[in-house]
């Protein structure tokens, strides 16, 4: 079941030198499969992981994740 949180990870990855899911996963200490699940909206990351993702792209949390509820 998809979670009510949209994200812009795919766009942000491509805006940051076409970063691969594997590269992002390595930077935040997760597996590529977990990054794929987050990006597809199948898994909601913890607050810590969300901040790590935002920090990799150098943007605020709300630019990465948007509440759709």
């Amino acid at each position: 079941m998809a979670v009510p949180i949209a994200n812009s990870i795919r766009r942000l990855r491509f805006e940051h030198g076409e970063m691969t899911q594997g590269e992002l996963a390595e930077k935040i200490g997760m597996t590529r499969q977990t990054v794929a699940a987050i990006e597809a909206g199948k898994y909601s990351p913890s607050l810590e992981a969300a901040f790590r993702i935002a920090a990799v792209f150098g943007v605020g949390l709300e630019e990465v994740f948007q509440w759709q509820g």
Partner: protein
Amino acid sequence: MEAPMSFREKAAWIGLVSAVVCFGVYFGSIALHRISGRGPSAMHLMALCAAAYVALQGGLTFLAARATPGAGAPPDERERLIQARSHTLGYYLLTVLVVALGAPLHFGHPAPDILNFAMLDVVVAGCAVSIAQIVMYRRGI
């Protein structure tokens, strides 16, 4: 594009396949023995199947670890969540199956049968954990 399997998803598949193959042979032989009255000693068969299970799971896990980059990394938060949920399911299933052991006891089955039923409970619960993990890995969570 479908992401390739993570090491822990491969490990779940390996655990499931190893258990089904090795303990399938064991319980199948026990069932045939009960029907035909012939077959190998249960103790020898158990030792053989347990050794085959350890060897199969160990060997396949070793191969999967060598073929998967980052296999030695600790589980991330999603993998820990999947492990926790699947083991919770396995715990409740095992609890129900252990309580259900009262049925063969009630009908006066001998001790070796009860031991085999108990082993079957553990194998079924272990398979349920692996299946739950595989389903959650495939679904994303």
